[in-house]
């Protein structure tokens, strides 16, 4: 499955965080690589949406929406720094 990028989840993230998030720099909790969320590898075809690190493929963000409730797991991120 081809990965999209963080642009594809800009709307979902804005809905959850109440602001534009794709310019925010996320640091991978596994390898320490930092990248803008817009540059994450994003898979939207599964039951949920998964964002992975382009350096080490670790899962950074998992998002699912169930009955209009958004569940967002940022557990793979060591840090989020707005640019």
């Amino acid at each position: 499955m081809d990965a999209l990028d963080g642009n594809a989840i800009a709307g979902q993230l804005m809905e959850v965080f109440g602001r534009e998030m794709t310019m925010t720099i996320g640091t991978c909790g596994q390898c320490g690589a930092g990248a803008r969320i817009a540059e994450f590898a994003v898979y939207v075809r599964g039951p949920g949406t998964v964002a992975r690190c382009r350096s080490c493929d670790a899962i950074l963000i998992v998002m699912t929406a169930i009955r209009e409730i958004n569940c967002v797991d940022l557990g793979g991120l060591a840090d989020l720094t707005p640019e």
Partner: protein
Amino acid sequence: MAGTAVRGRLTWQLADVVELVDETPRVKSIVLDVPDWPGHRAGQHVDVRLTAEDGYQAQRSYSIASAPEDDHVVLTVERLDDGEVSPYLTDELRPGDKLELRGPIGGYFVWEASLGGPLLLVAGGSGVVPLRAMLRHRAAARSAVPARLLYSSRSLGDVIYRDDLNRLAAYDEVDVRLTLTREWPTEWNGHRGRVDMELLSEVAWPPGDGALTYICGSTGFVEAAANGLVELGHDPARVRTERFGPSGSR
């Protein structure tokens, strides 16, 4: 639906369909009147949501094709035969209909005249949509930034915005290059074949010129073009990418 949108918050709202424009046999532009549109930046997109009678909803993102300075918000949609949303938008939607959307969305794949250039735009198929917004913005803002668009299509008949791109290319500082990958007219004097290192090195400025680059298309197209430019010596930090799904969901 909320009566007033809180600035900065993302709210679903109803837009009025003003006009539908045939761009190619598979691609239509939807001209919209969006009440209280807060304005957008070239390269941003909107989320569009369709709701069936039984309540089932399907949502997709579509790039904004119009410049911030244009009178209407325009989306350009490619019909995907197995799509859930695009066949409705290209086949069923009529002027006077309402369309539910939210936006503008995105802050990364955005170009404003103040960001300067030179500006290198690389498009595969319907990936040209946000890049066209950038070129229209460049013209409307009377920017003197030199701009080059390298646009890959299957055939001449698949080229979106052909007339508009010809008009935009009339500016001295704007160069539009088409490459056709599957078929071309016998008299075709544009490029033939996929975007590769050779074509990139021919069209792009030398890496030392520090061009600001935007690449949009399918995942495979974007990665080939971005990797090619970086291999040619372009600064990865000045190469911005936006990938459409294989399903072309945007």
